């Protein structure tokens, strides 16, 4: 697969899982983040995801490379941009590993790292009141996570 890691609209998990499992791998770990219907007590109707496309693509690719190096696994990372509704998948991490321990570790590391290193912003839309950008965390390089 040589997919773009940044996609317009909700991610299709089946597409991200379509690759074959290498014969030397015994563990597949997947994480997907989806839009929740409530945040800090407010009813959410959707989230618009904004990205700096060039830097975001680069950072997503760096997470794949760094995860492979640190954990000895095969890693794919995707993120949505644009308008998503409640239940839609905004992010997916797929890890194919020899065994489950490193599959889980790499998957957890990748989502935690993505949230600190990739220039993407949530603009949350509510049932009542104006949309707003969520508070975030100052961007860090992938190697510093």
């Amino acid at each position, binding site marked *: 697969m040589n997919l773009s890691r940044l996609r317009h609209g909700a991610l299709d998990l089946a597409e991200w899982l379509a690759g074959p499992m290498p014969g030397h791998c015994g563990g597949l770990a997947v994480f997907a983040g989806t839009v929740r219907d409530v945040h800090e007590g407010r009813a959410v109707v959707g989230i618009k995801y904004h990205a*700096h496309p060039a830097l975001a693509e680069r950072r997503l690719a760096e997470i794949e490379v760094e995860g492979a190096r640190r954990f000895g696994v095969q890693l794919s990372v995707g993120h949505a941009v644009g308008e998503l509704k409640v239940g839609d998948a905004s992010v997916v991490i797929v890890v194919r590993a020899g065994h489950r321990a490193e599959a889980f570790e790499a998957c957890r590391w990748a989502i935690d790292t993505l949230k600190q290193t990739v220039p993407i912003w949530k603009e949350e839309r509510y049932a009542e009141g104006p949309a707003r950008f969520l508070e975030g965390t100052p961007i860090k390089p992938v190697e510093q996570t």
Partner: protein
Amino acid sequence: MRITVECYGASQRWCGAELISLDLADAASVAAALDELAGRYPDFASRRETVAVAIGDEIVASARVLADGERIALIPPVSGG
């Protein structure tokens, strides 16, 4: 010289626009561009320390010297996932 500032995420709200033109002294640095923005936009000034700057697909240091016509991107705190 003139540069263009692309405002990503909440920095659009702080500066009130997605694109801003700045007239700067020749060979001005990224820091000088941020000084100019901070002078104009109080909501940016108060968050300046949390904002990174990208040129192309790279985060650049504040000492980076700018060229006429260059575009810089404001990268406020990120909230992806």
